[in-house]
């Protein structure tokens, strides 16, 4: 036990759940926030028993404008000082913007952006007053890439990156650190909830494991690193995305966000291999003929 407390939003699933385990292992007390009360309670029971820590469950819907305020108040009333804030709760909606569900998109903005700013404000104030504290923000590789078919979601993650980088600068002279974790596509419930389980990115690319991503984020947070891109492929992508034009990145992302069609993909690959084969054969023939001709001359 280290006597410190970490508040984790989105602790009922995915990365958030993994963060809760990591903090508990290191002896942090926990405040677990999400909507699913029973799931949180179970996790809380598990972790308090296994690691002898204290845990508080706050079932809140962060799509409600006053949720952040309530969370802060309850912490105050229970005399809990939050030393680490993890803004993990987030969601998305899949589909062409003109057809996608407005209500879900407004919730996405409220949870991913507004509540994140609100919670950061309330807890950061106290951290700065104490001149100690740590905050982890969940960005994404999509923070750098406009995301067709998840246009609002990608934009919320671009918001989180810009916001976090500005705050990192503002907090330069303090002992409070902010870290942004930027995962690529990972195998959590995220895609199912977004209605994006049929996409190429979910079906046909190698997904990160939530426990690996959370571990990377946790270590970055603890050492106060500004930005953690989890996974080698994603690191390469992030470097590229920083330099390439948005329209280009958007086109690339569009391809990954389209529904996965195994037949079409197979055909595409066959075509690609065929082209490669024909080119190779051509080159070989040319080389062979060139040799022959040369030998003729000799």
């Amino acid at each position: 036990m280290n006597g410190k407390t970490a508040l984790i939003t989105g602790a009922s699933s995915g990365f958030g759940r993994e963060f809760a385990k990591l903090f508990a292992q290191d002896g942090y007390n926990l405040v677990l926030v999400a909507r699913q009360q029973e799931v949180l309670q179970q996790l809380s029971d598990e972790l308090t028993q296994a690691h002898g820590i204290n845990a508080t469950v706050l079932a809140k819907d962060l799509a409600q404008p006053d949720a952040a305020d309530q969370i802060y108040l309850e912490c105050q009333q229970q005399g809990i000082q939050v030393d680490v804030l993890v803004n993990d709760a987030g969601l998305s909606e899949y589909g062409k913007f003109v057809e996608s569900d407005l209500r879900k998109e407004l919730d996405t903005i409220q949870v991913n952006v507004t509540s994140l700013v609100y919670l950061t404000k309330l807890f950061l104030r106290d951290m700065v007053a104490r001149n100690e504290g740590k905050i982890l923000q969940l960005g994404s590789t999509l923070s750098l890439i406009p995301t067709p078919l998840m246009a609002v979601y990608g934009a919320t993650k671009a918001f989180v990156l810009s916001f976090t980088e500005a705050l990192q600068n503002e907090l330069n002279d303090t002992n409070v650190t902010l870290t942004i974790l930027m995962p690529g596509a990972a195998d959590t419930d995220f895609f199912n909830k977004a209605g994006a389980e049929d996409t190429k990115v979910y079906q046909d690319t190698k997904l990160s494991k939530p426990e690996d991503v959370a571990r990377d984020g946790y270590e970055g947070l603890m050492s106060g690193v500004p930005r953690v891109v989890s996974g080698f492929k994603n690191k390469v992508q992030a470097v590229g995305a920083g330099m390439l034009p948005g329209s280009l990145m958007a086109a690339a992302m569009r391809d990954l966000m389209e529904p996965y069609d195994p037949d079409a993909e197979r055909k595409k690959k066959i075509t690609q291999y065929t082209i490669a084969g024909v080119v190779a054969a051509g080159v070989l023939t040319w080389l062979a003929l060139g040799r022959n001709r040369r030998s003729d001359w000799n």
Partner: protein
Amino acid sequence: MKINGQTALITGASSGIGYELARCFAQDGYNLVLVSRNTDRLNEIANEFTQQYGLGKVTVVGADLAQPDAPQRVYNEMNNQGIRVNVLVNDAGFGEYGMFATETDLQKELSMIQTNVTALVHLTKLFLRDMTTRNEGKILMLASVASVLPNPLMAVYGATKAFILSFSEALRNELKDTDITVTALMPGATNTDFFNRAGADGTVAHKQAMKTDAADVARDGYEALMSGKDKVVSGMMNKAQVAMSRVMPDPFITANVRKQMARPSNGNGQHEKEGKKQMATTGSLVGAVLILGIVALAYYNKARYTDFKLSDLHL
């Protein structure tokens, strides 16, 4: 004189860039729908344009876009009046200046997110649906150079603008097979009421803003919108700064913006000097990467016209 029968709806038409954008449309004979809170001012503007250009019909709609139901109300009002919106200009927006942890006003920042982000998404949804049914329409989004430069001392504002650019670029891609275009206008510091309203008066950026006319910025945006371009950075120095942001590390970029956001206080000589020094550093920095910027832009322009597919990378 041309009357073109089309209608442009402009949020934030009561002041600054939105007002100048409205003028561009008025000059080209568009019918106008002017939206903002200050209906007195909007009515004045309606009279001014009608007298000066006398072409299209001007409708004034009072709305506080920080209210969640405002976009739907504006949309309903258009339907009630039988107005078809051919061009949507999402201009209304504001900032809040200060250190996020200790100085800025949370309520103002929440209203800002609602206005700059949520209302923009909501209005776009409502009007884009109808544009898609007709397969015709144009949308202009007020982004900013702050869309690509994290903005210390206006951390929330900069992030709202990063949101807008990402959203616009994604949307543009989704609409590429339609006749609907989405254009992002990215101004740098511009001489409007923006800095006063944000409480950022007297900053280096505010001083820089004095040199850039809202009318010029609006003109750049209008032309880009009309020709269906994906985005336009207004002003040479701003173009360079945006290009620079692609190749420089973020903390460096951010620190540089921080200097622009500083307030050389009290007209005190020492501070004035410091302000000048900061401006000079910024200036020379921008100058030094100007060539880099031009190269980057040239590359960008080339890249825009090639139809890029991820599968190209697999080969």
